[in-house]
Each structure stands twice: as structure tokens, then as C-alpha cells.
């Protein structure tokens, strides 16, 4: 019985194209009539469509195999395997060796994948290097991320969302048993712990690379956020859990002390500390709607700060100002600061004005004077349990005294010398007038005789 008359053999009668094929057909690729007699004219069998189909299938499969082994085999061609261009932030790191930067990072151009992907270091090149030491190894992909990012995110080593420990997250987040874990399709995808339950969250779980140069790595889908944030609420004012211990006094990227503003300044003025005033711009739409991290000075700060700034500018610029230090703490730690006004010896307070900071830095050994001080410049934030900070404060006191004595003894020439030291050379003629005016507040020469040196 012949169900399907398409020939499955690789050859067919050579005369089939003219409709004169014999019933015998080719045998083993040769004409069946061959050798039967002189009166029978044998044909030259031709390939069937079935044969050509198989050959083409095989050819494409072979081609694919060659491409796949080419991609897999040679490390230098790994860029062929990349699923897409890197984001701008990461692509620039991989372009060439970056020397002299804060992080001495060097990536072998032929072995760029191993900078972020573990287990590829031994296939050529040296992968990522930190301080000329190759980072080899059996490290996870997230650990490789932290080679560069740990400095900015010291708590990222916890490997959990928002750089918090699992227990800290657990305190913050209430588990919702009706969440995705018990969803209808959970039997298909299996049980996966919620992110806050996990102790090994990978960076790439939220931050997806190889999405192109324009892709924002910080952009995270709502689904991912909702892996933890499952409790729905209508708005911040209606249904959102209470913000506990907010605002926090911890220092942030932007030097703005929420807690001090709420507790001190707003209370003093009798104003309510409303988030919306500084974080909502009604006539603009950003990434998260009308909510912004910071608004322009005119919108957020001017109502309180514009008048004091204007007044301060009218009264003049503070150049010299004695900071207040806790003499007892310094003394207990073995630092004798000598003569220092009693009124400025009770507690660490005040700041060093910027012009005075420049003058101090211009003096000998002044370059590292502020390295261990708080970035905000506020002495009240100094940790007196830290030996380095105690030493830095004692050095600051001595340097301040030395500067005061120098200016008192030498007057305007001393000030000019400090300015010259600051700009590493003589003052340009064009700036002489300004400098004369600036120095006019000081006596031409020392007005205090005899000067005290301690």
C-alpha cells in the first residue's frame, strides 16, 4: 500500500523529468536497467527533492555548529556572544585601562567578559585587576560588581535589597502570605523565597546589563519592587505605614540634615515639617511622577534661607572664626592645646569658614588638615572616640592658633604671603586691588606687641 508517493530514496530515474521513467527505478544510485541488455538504454539517475532537502538541512545545521563552536571556543571572539551593548556607565570602564584614578582599574581588552562574569579568567587575559593585583577567581558575579562599587556602597556586601541585612529587612517588611509565593502558578515555578528572606540576592536580579547604552541600570520594574512591597496602599497619606524614626540624622549624599531641620529650625519657626514642600513639584513630571529627590533652591529653600544669605552677604564675608572645641576631651586624650578662649573650650561646635580653610591649607602641613574631619565641616559631628579624629582636631586647633598669631604678628604682609602660598605664586596685577581691599581689615604690620607664641 502506498500512502505517500513522494519518494524517500535519494535518487530517482533520470528520465522522470520527461515522463519516461521505467517502473524499475534506480538501484543503489545506479540505473536498474544497466547491464540488462543492449536494447535497454540506461539512464543517469538524478537526486530527489528528498535528498536535496536533507542536504540543505544538514548544511544549515553544520553552519550553525561552526558558528556555535566559533563563539564558544575562542575567547577573543566572546564579544560575538554578547547579547547586547553595555550601559554607558560600564562600557567606558571596558574601553581602555584607566590609570591614576581613585580606583586603579585595569581590564584586559581581550578578556573583558571576565570583569563581570566569574569563571572566565583562565581563558586568556587577566580579567579585572585592582591595584595591579589580578582578581581571579571563584568569586560570584555580584562580588565582582562590588570590586568597584563597594566603596560607594559599603553595606552592599550583605547582598540584600537596599543594602540591609536579612534581619533588618525582616523587621521592616511584613510578610504577606497572600503574595506571589502562594499564587495560582506557584506550582509551576516552584517556591522561591521573597527577596527579604534571601541572604544571597544578586545585583543582576534587579540591575540588568546588556540592554544597550541608553538603558538605565537603576530602572527597576514594578513587579520586582513588589516582590517585597506587596502591601498596597491608596496614597502616602492614606494607608501607607507610618514612617518610624524619620527623619534620620544619618549623613546622606546631599548634605542636608532632615532631623536637625525638623527638630531645631522648623520647631523654632513654628512651621510644620511637610515632605511635600521640598519634594513635590506640581508643574513637572519626572521618573516617579511629581515626586523629586530635590527641588530648586527657589522652591525648597528660599523661603527660609534667602533672607539670611542676603543679610550675611551685606554684612561681609567671614574669613576668620575660632571654632569651639572640647578642651577636656582633648586633654584626657593627651592633647594639650595651650591657650584657647574659655568660651570656645566647652564643646565641639562651629565650622571653619571656607576662606579660613584655604588659608589654613596654604600653611605648611595644611594639605591634610581636613582629611579626617567630617565632610560637612561641622565640628559637632566629630567622633571623639576615634583617635584619628582627635588628632585631627588637635592639629586644627594648633594650625588655627598659628594662623592667628601669624596674621597678628605680620598683618597685611602675612596675609599676602598666605594668599601667595595658596595660589602657589605671586598675585596677578589685576587681582592686586581686590587683595588690597580684602586685606585692609588687618593692620599694616603687627599691632600687638609683644606677640605671644603659645
Amino acid at each position, binding site marked *: 500500500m502506498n500512502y505517500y508517493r513522494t519518494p524517500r530514496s535519494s535518487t530517482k530515474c533520470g528520465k522522470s523529468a520527461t515522463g519516461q521513467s521505467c517502473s524499475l527505478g534506480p538501484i543503489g544510485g545506479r540505473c536498474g536497467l544497466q547491464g540488462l541488455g543492449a536494447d535497454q538504454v540506461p539512464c543517469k539517475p538524478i537526486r530527489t*527533492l528528498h535528498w536535496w532537502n536533507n542536504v540543505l*538541512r544538514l548544511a544549515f545545521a553544520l553552519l550553525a*555548529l561552526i558558528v556555535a563552536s566559533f563563539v564558544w571556543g575562542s575567547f577573543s571572539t566572546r564579544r560575538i556572544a554578547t547579547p547586547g551593548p553595555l550601559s554607558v556607565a560600564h562600557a567606558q570602564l571596558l574601553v581602555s585601562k584607566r590609570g591614576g584614578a581613585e580606583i586603579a582599574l585595569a581590564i584586559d581588552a581581550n578578556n573583558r567578559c571576565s570583569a563581570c562574569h566569574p569563571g572566565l579568567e583562565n581563558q586568556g587575559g587577566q580579567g579585572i585587576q585592582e591595584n595591579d593585583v589580578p582578581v581571579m577567581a571563584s568569586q*560570584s558575579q555580584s562580588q565582582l560588581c562590588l570590586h568597584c562599587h563597594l566603596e560607594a556602597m559599603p553595606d552592599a556586601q550583605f547582598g540584600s535589597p537596599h543594602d540591609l541585612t536579612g534581619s533588618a529587612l525582616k523587621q521592616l517588611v511584613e510578610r504577606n502570605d497572600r503574595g506571589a509565593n502562594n499564587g495560582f502558578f506557584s506550582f509551576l*515555578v516552584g517556591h*522561591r523565597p521573597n527577596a527579604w528572606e*534571601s541572604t544571597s540576592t544578586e545585583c543582576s536580579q534587579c540591575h540588568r546589563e546588556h540592554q544597550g547604552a541608553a538603558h538605565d541600570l537603576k530602572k527597576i520594574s514594578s513587579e520586582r519592587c513588589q516582590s517585597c512591597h506587596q502591601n498596597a496602599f491608596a496614597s502616602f497619606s492614606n494607608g501607607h505605614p507610618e514612617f518610624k524614626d524619620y527623619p534620620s540624622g544619618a549623613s546622606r549624599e546631599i548634605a542636608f540634615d532632615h532631623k536637625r531641620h525638623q527638630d531645631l529650625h522648623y520647631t523654632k519657626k513654628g512651621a510644620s515639617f511637610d515632605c511635600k514642600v521640598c519634594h513635590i513639584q506640581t508643574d513637572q513630571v519626572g521618573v516617579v511622577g511629581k515626586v523629586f529627590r530635590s527641588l530648586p533652591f527657589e522652591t525648597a529653600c528660599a523661603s527660609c534661607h534667602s533672607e539670611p544669605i542676603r543679610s550675611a552677604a551685606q554684612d561681609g564675608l567671614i574669613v576668620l572664626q575660632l571654632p569651639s572645641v572640647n578642651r577636656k576631651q582633648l586633654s584626657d586624650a593627651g592633647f594639650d592645646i595651650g591657650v584657647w578662649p574659655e568660651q570656645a573650650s566647652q564643646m565641639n561646635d562651629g565650622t571653619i569658614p571656607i576662606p579660613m580653610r584655604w588659608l589654613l591649607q596654604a600653611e605648611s602641613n595644611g594639605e591634610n588638615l581636613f582629611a579626617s574631619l567630617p565632610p560637612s565641616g561641622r565640628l559637632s559631628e566629630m567622633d571623639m572616640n576615634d583617635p584619628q579624629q582627635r588628632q585631627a582636631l588637635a592639629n586644627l586647633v594648633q594650625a588655627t592658633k598659628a594662623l592667628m598669631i601669624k596674621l597678628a604678628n605680620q598683618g597685611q604682609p602675612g596675609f599676602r604671603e598666605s594668599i601667595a602660598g595658596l595660589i602657589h605664586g605671586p598675585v596677578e596685577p589685576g587681582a592686586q586691588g581686590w587683595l588690597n581691599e580684602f586685606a585692609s581689615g588687618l593692620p599694616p604690620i603687627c599691632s600687638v606687641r609683644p606677640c605671644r607664641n603659645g
Partner: protein
Amino acid sequence: MTSFVPTNAMSTTEPSRDGPIGNTLRGYASMWARAGRRLVPCMVVLAAFLVLRSIQNSVEAKLGNEAFASGYSLAAITFLLLLLGVRKRVITQRFGAVALWQRSHHYLGMLCLGSYVLHAGVITTGWFESLLAISFWAITLSGLGSWYINRTAPRLLSAAGPQILRQDIPERKNQVAAAAYRLAMEAAGRSDSAALADHYQSTLVSFFGFHRGFWYFVRPTGAHRRRILAALENMDRYLDDKGTDLRRQMSQLVQTKDDLDFQSAIQNRIRLCAGFHTWLLGGFVILTVAHVLLAYQFSSHW
């Protein structure tokens, strides 16, 4: 593509006993029945697509790698699609008719397309990924082309006379050419029909004896046939009654030969599209395996 429908395909429909209203109602009923036959599987495909999307969302909501979920869904659907090739090679009715498998293949193909877009999006970047994407789109588009041709070809083929298997067409052409030759010989033996024999020798030998050429295969039209038939009809004034009768028989043979050429062209088109749909399959499977290995090699979690 414009297709030629031979003249003998114009069949006359029997007048309905129910009148025009009955015809209209029957037409609507038939249309709704056809729509229903397609609507149900389409709804099933849509439901399956939504299930896949939900699974993907569910994985994403657990900070999992949704690309692996959608990738494995795609692989499973591709495997089911490949089963049609296996079914075609098994000569049995035990697993259902091939036509049913073919229909399922078409709807699964739609689901596969949706699943692919979920997995990789429409635009793909990267050399290797693009190669894989090109293979996928080539297979998909050839599949869609094959589906369209399979939908339209039966109507075209049935319009061109009784359907003949592709491998039988050369033999039939040979028989037609032999019949035309005998007819020409008969005309040559009679002085009042000799013009037909002369015309056969000068024009029709090449028509009956040779293939129609590449462009006829690309776009089969009836222009050449119409020219030949017009020329034959113009010869009637040189022929007596017997000669005219022979000319009519010759015209019929021209028509038959043209129908055979048309059937050959359409069937070749079907085979080419179906062939192209399967040529890339092996390569696609190999590239897919390499893609999975690369994904596991370079991904930090799945």
C-alpha cells in the same frame, strides 16, 4: 502575488431551490461556522499566552530571572511544533489525522511567536543573538508563507483541472505532447488541414516540449496560453470541417498542457516554502542549545 486561474475552472453553480434568501442564510451560517472553528482555538492560544505572561510575571515578582522561564516555555512550544515532522513520517491513523496535527501546528506557531516576543522582544541586539533571531524569524515567516499557500493553493489547483501528484506531472505532459504530435501528423496527412501541422511545427512544438521557465514558476499567468489559443482560432479560415475539429482538439491539448504547467508551478511553490521552513530547523536547534549554554554560563541566577 497574482495567480492565474484557467478558463475551464469557471464552474457553473446549480441554481438553489430555496431562492436568494435561503442562499444568503446558508452563506451566513457557513461563515459563522467557519469563524467559530477558528475562534475557539484562537481563544485557547490567547489564554495560553496569558498563562505564559503570568508565569513570567510571577518569576519576576520573586526576583527570579524571567528570561529563563519564558525561554523554557519557548523551548517546550518549539518541541511540540517539531512533533508535526515526526507525525508526518509515521504512517498510521492511530495518532490522529495529519490534517489535525497541521492545524494544531499552525495555532501552536502563533503561540510560539507570542512566546518569542515575551522572551526576546521584537528587536534583538548582539551578533549571536541576532543570528538566532534571524533563524527564528526566517522559520516563522516561511511557516506563515507556507500556511498562506496551503490555504490558497487547493482552490487554485482544483481550478486547474483534476489534481495530479507533482511527480506524475512530467509523465502527463509527455502524454499530452505525444497526443499533440499524433494530431499534427494526422493534420499533415490532409491537404485542407496542413496549415495546422505547419503551425504545430513552427510554434507548438516548443510549447509542448519544453519547461515554461523560471519566471512562469515565480508568477504563473495565462498570457502565453491566450496568445496560442487566439492564434489557433485564427487558423479556422484555412481549415475545412475536419481540420477545424482537429484544431479544437489541439486547443484542448494546449489548455491541458497549460493546466499541467500551472499545477507544477503551484506545487513547486508549496514544496519550496515547506522545504525552506524545515531547512533551517536543524541549525536553529543547534543555535538554541548554544544560546542556553551561554545563558547558563554568563547569568548569575536563573
